[in-house]
């Protein structure tokens, strides 16, 4: 054992260090009263926490989202589930919705009274959970202070979401329908105006109205469509069906018209047939020339035109063979104007690279007329296309806003809100144990801190830091007690 004066301030071998550690622990244990004090404080804090927190009950409901009724238009892309979930969450947590629930079930009356309904809504939001794990299902959960109320509030939240979604959907469909109705009327008017302009043009220039064929509604006015319609019903028909006009060159028309058919008694019908065949041939050639001006010879339309010309020639040849009447000079003379007209058509169909002053004046007027005719026909076609498109959209909007569309729900309840049987863990015992552990740890830490901060002299090692220690007089508890009793 070392005497006090043998001790050095920095003497610290392993045993001394261990002795110091034990000495520190012993000093800590002298402050044992801190532990019950800390436990008492922890108990008070736990009681206050439980009183403030109260019991919390949890209820949850699961909803399923299904796509709306399709109207046949498959061009619409499917809705992203994430966007849908975000939209539903915004709908659920909107202030107006939550205010309704707060007012209906009298939630957070203290907050409403002290801070207003806005603060109550903020508090309500903290206890509402919206989860969208993925797919088409999502859940709504609520934590309340009473089991029955929690269940009712959860169910009401789901109902509000469904109602709000249906209302918005109906409102959107109605707005869309109204908009499309207006657009439909406008497009109808545009179509009528375009048709009227074209009819006026045709009335001014009847030469453009030699053939009237019937086309399918909405079909573009093309040469192939005309030929197809001619193959089904070459005769014109009335009503609201779309009409297509074939163009016959005035030169060819004059050529056809200038070649008077010699009325041979007995062969009047044959001559009429031949005239029609010749007119068809002219039209086919005109169409071929137009196609050749636009496309190459390998283009299908050019080939169809060539086939039509061949068919018309064959037709004419067959009629000529059947009628041995020699071709009248008019007919022979008619071939020359046809050749001339063919060349004229080819020249006219070529791109306008010819010097305008080199073109004859009647040719300029012809070009202008053809341009106007093309513009008017294109206008009618486009107007009809727009009208048809708007009409289809209006049909879909009408279906969506109809009763049958509204009654088709998008959100359905898969799992209704359940009645909670026990509070949300942790319970009072668990909370109490946690507080006790924390209080104990706090107490031990306080003991250690108090010991560290305690600068009292406990042994010679503490006093040696100040001055030489002469002797340590051991403690005598009996004497201390006797002295305390005497004084």
């Amino acid at each position, binding site marked *: 054992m070392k005497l*006090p*004066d043998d001790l050095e301030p920095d003497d610290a071998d392993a045993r001394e260090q261990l002795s110091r550690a034990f*000495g520190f622990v012993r000093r800590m244990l*002298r402050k044992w009263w801190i532990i019950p004090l800390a436990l008492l404080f922890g108990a008070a804090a736990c009681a206050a926490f439980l009183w403030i927190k109260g019991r919390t009950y949890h209820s949850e409901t699961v909803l399923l989202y299904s796509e709306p009724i399709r109207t046949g238009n498959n061009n619409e892309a499917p809705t992203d589930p994430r966007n849908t979930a975000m939209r539903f969450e915004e709908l659920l947590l909107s202030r107006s919705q939550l205010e309704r629930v707060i007012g209906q079930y009298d939630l957070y009356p203290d907050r409403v009274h002290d801070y207003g309904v806005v603060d109550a809504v903020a508090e309500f939001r903290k206890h509402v959970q919206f989860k969208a794990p993925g797919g088409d299902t999502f859940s709504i959960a609520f934590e309340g202070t009473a089991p029955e109320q929690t269940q009712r509030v959860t169910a009401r939240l789901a109902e509000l979401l469904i109602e709000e979604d249906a209302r918005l959907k109906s409102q959107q469909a109605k707005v869309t329908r109204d908009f499309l109705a207006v657009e439909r009327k406008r497009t109808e008017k545009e179509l009528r105006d375009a048709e009227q302009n074209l009819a006026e043009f045709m009335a001014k220039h009847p030469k453009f109205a030699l053939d009237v064929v019937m086309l399918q509604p909405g079909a573009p006015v093309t040469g192939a469509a005309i030929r197809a319609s001619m193959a089904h019903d070459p005769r014109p028909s009335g009503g609201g069906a779309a009409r297509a006009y074939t163009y016959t060159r005035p030169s060819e028309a004059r050529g056809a018209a200038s070649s008077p058919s010699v009325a041979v008694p007995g062969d009047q019908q044959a001559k009429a047939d031949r005239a029609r065949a010749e007119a068809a041939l002219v039209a086919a050639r005109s169409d071929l020339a137009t196609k050749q001006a636009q496309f190459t010879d390998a283009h299908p339309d050019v080939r169809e035109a060539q086939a039509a010309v061949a068919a018309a020639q064959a037709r004419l040849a067959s009629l000529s063979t059947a009628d041995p009447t020699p071709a009248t000079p008019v007919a022979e003379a008619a071939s020359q104007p046809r050749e001339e007209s063919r060349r004229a058509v080819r020249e006219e169909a070529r791109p306008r690279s010819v010097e305008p002053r080199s073109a004859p004046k009647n040719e300029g007027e012809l070009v202008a007329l053809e341009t106007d005719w093309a513009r008017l026909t294109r206008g009618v076609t486009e107007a009809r296309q727009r009208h048809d498109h708007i009409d289809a959209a209006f049909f879909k909007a009408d279906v969506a806003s109809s009763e049958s569309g509204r009654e088709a729900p998008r959100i359905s309840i898969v799992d209704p809100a359940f009645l909670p049987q026990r509070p949300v863990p942790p319970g009072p015992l668990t909370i109490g144990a946690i507080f006790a552990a924390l209080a104990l740890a706090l107490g031990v830490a306080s003991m250690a801190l108090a010991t560290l901060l305690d*600068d*009292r*002299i*406990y*042994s*010679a090692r*503490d*006093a040696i*830091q*100040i*001055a*030489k*220690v*002469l*002797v*340590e*007089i*051991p*403690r*005598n508890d009996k*004497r*201390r007690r*006797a*002295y305390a009793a*005497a004084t």
Partner: protein
Amino acid sequence: MPPRPEPLLPYRMVELTTNPAPRNHRKTLRLFEEATYERAPDPPRREKQETEVIVWQPPAPPRTESTPRVSMECIALADKLDPRLTLLRAPDSAQSKAFRLLRHRLLRQSDPRLIAVTSAERGEGKTTCAVNLALAIAEETLTRVLLFEANVRQPSAARLFDFEPRECLSRQLSRLQGSMRGYSIAAVAGTRLCIAAMSPDLAPGVRLDRFILGVALSELRSEFDYIVVDTSPVLESADANAVAECVDGVILVARADRSRQKRVKHAVKQLGSAPLLGITLLDSREAA
């Protein structure tokens, strides 16, 4: 020596003789059992019947002007000793052995003859340490020890031995200003310890004069082999500094579990250049 009168009651007494001669003259201290002496004309104010204090004054020796006159009164130990008198209550205890060890280390170290015992603050055991150190030194053969109480703020030596000083030491010191110098000292029966104590009911405001204190200690130094001075706490007044200037060494007493290092350091710093012998740690748990 004058004849001894017949005793009236059996008691324990100590016969003392004071020799004004220098130290080399032998002074005798004997313990008599059942000796009898006549009651003094003016006995002390003890009312106990079991023990009586006999004041016996030998004839005054011839004195010179430089020789102080020391009058002694013999006090008997009470049946129930104060718990702080460790060496008297339990001479064989560990505490007593520690005090003897303290005595041994002091005598081995520098053998100071005038020792001041103080502490940083009150209640740290300086009186306990002083009286027990004095008792330990008094156990030495042929040793005269005086416990000089210089604590005017909280005098407790008289209470410790349960007696009333015939004259308060403070009055004696104040009278030293005159030509007559004299000390009234109590001798503890059964020991070689003498006590110069303050009155327990000393009036507040009494101050120690540094010069007079120095004169008194220097005069008493010629009468006793060792003088242990019980002073006031260092941090409560400057009396300890005044005493420290007159002594050969100062012992600073600290009590375990009570004294604070900061305060003790401050006390050491305040003592300054005083000859600090060391620290005595009381109530140490680790030494138990």
